[in-house]
């Protein structure tokens, strides 16, 4: 049952990923991405990684996608002309991606995977004790990444107000 569910979700994820990469409209891409992230969240849940599934739903599919959709609607980018299918650069890109994917699949197929997890695997308690114990250093470090992001937003956002006052920036 779980196996079947995983297969369906994986199929859905692949389809939505193609949607992200190939949609003409940015807003479609964003929606496909949301779909993909949701699929992955479900996969986490199916792997009994409950906390990660929840975090994926909240952080990714929730917060990040809202920002993406917001950006898309604010900017309203024109539809991208995808051009002909036999554009050489496009073909080369697809070929390289295919080769890369094939090799990653090949490498992944050699992975030793064992289902030996304990009953409480993926529980919040164990997760938290690791996060605030062994991983306290990167946990604190993440705070600085977020701070840098905050500074960046302040920098770029603040500038926008100033620029509007001056009637927009010049091109050079």
């Amino acid at each position, binding site marked *: 049952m779980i196996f079947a569910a995983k297969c369906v979700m994986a199929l859905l994820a692949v389809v939505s990923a193609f949607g992200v990469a190939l949609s003409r409209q940015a807003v479609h891409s964003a929606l496909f991405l949301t779909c993909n992230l949701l699929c992955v969240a479900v996969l986490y849940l199916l792997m009994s990684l409950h906390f990660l599934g929840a975090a994926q739903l909240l952080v990714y599919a929730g917060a990040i996608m809202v920002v993406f959709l917001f950006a898309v609607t604010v900017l309203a980018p024109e539809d991208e002309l995808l051009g002909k299918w036999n554009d050489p650069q496009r073909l080369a890109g697809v070929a390289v991606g295919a080769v890369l994917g094939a090799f990653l699949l090949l*490498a992944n197929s*050699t992975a030793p995977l064992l289902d030996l997890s304990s009953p409480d695997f993926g529980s919040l*308690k164990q997760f938290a*004790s690791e996060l605030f114990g062994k991983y306290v*250093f990167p946990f604190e*470090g993440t705070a*600085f*990444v977020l*701070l*840098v992001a905050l500074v960046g937003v302040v920098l770029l956002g603040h500038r926008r107000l100033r620029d509007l006052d001056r009637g927009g920036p010049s091109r050079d």
Partner: protein
Amino acid sequence: MMPQQILKPELAWQGMVPLLMLAGLFVFHFLIEILRAPKSRTTGGFWTLLVSLLGVVYLTACPDQPVGAVVHKMWIYDGVTRLGSLLVFLSLAAVTLIIPKSVEESGHLGEYYALLSGAALGMVMLMGSNNLLVTFLALELFSLALYLLCIFLPDRSTSQESGLKYFILSSLASAVILYGMALIYGATGSTWLHEIGARASQGGLLMIVGSTLLAAGLAFKVSAVPFHVWTPDVYQGAPTPVTAFMSVATKTAALVALLRFFPMTLGMAGDTHDGVRTMWAIIIWSLAMLSMLFGNLMALSQTNLKRLLAYSGIAQAGYLLGAIFMGTPIAKVSLFYYLLVYLCMNVGAFVVVAALEEVDESLDVHALAGLSMRQPYLAAALAVFLFSLTGLPPTAGFVAKYQLFSALMASGPNPLPKYLVAAALVGSLMSAGYYLRFVVQAYGLGPAPEPHKQIPPTYLAVIATAVVAVFALSFWAGPVLEWMQRLLGT
């Protein structure tokens, strides 16, 4: 399985001092400069300079032996971290002193300093990292700060272009690195470098592909050929002090990360004919070879000084990767000595570029003609730095190259490092062509002297210090090398 207890981190504050200094500086800027936005704009620079100089003093003068692992072995403070952090602090101090008019007028000086110290924090964190997660985190920390620094000048479309290109390509590299890390974790079951190193030889194909992806991503940060494509555009578009910082500090951090991965993760399997280790060595070797040859070759046709320095940085990365490839104690010492000298000459050259921009000189090779009459000091300093970058004798560049090449030559029967030396010599020959072209132009005839435009005194101070250092490091190379040798414990 017993539920694990919450472990108390075993903190060794001594080793954390450089990290804490930068973290404190960053928080200070965030709280005081950005949120409060004081009227006086010089305090931020003052504190940054003070902290970076204190850090330099702490890292050079602190007599203690290396402290070792910190916080569940997440982070290591040893000679390598110490020397690398020293270089980052030094470049931070230099960059703090050169604030272009355009940055000052943007009214975001607080953010500028905050991002600089954040980037430095990320770099120091990366150099001591002993865990894949910390490595990724640190990479992202300084990369995010650098994207924002690249795009810092709102009125210049080149700055925006530089920021966007760096952002997209660097994120791509981050994704590649992350996938490599995932595979390595899958292959060995640990994210700690020393444990990975112990199990690397059992990793199989998963480990080989994972470490290749990781090497590719780090090669991107080092800007080695063929992952160099972003370098010239980003360097040219970014504000010059940021370029100077990136060219030295980022390169140092990424090289040290490579150095940590090279022997620790993958070389610990002893002298057995270990596939992973051989692979890694071959990757580094070919990256070094390509960077030396193509970096110098592409620099030959450059006409813009800033862009030329970007291309020459690619070639220099090749020489440095050669030292990483060797990995012997002598090679490590010569790597750090080269990095120190590279810091002096490259930051010096970029400060000259910044000063030229401040006095509205063009950076084009033809427009440089007669610079020696308009700006005699700048021209002389530029000549010194370019001579040193070429590796001509009385300067430290010569000693650094000499040390590096002799370290590569001491490889016994293995011919691979000797090919590197041959390529480096050919590359140096080419580099003499393009560096000296600029010097000759600067000392050639040109437009009559215009009324002097004032160069800010801090610029001159940095340039003078760098010139002195370029000569001092050559005449007192012995003591410096001995000191580094002692720190690295070889």
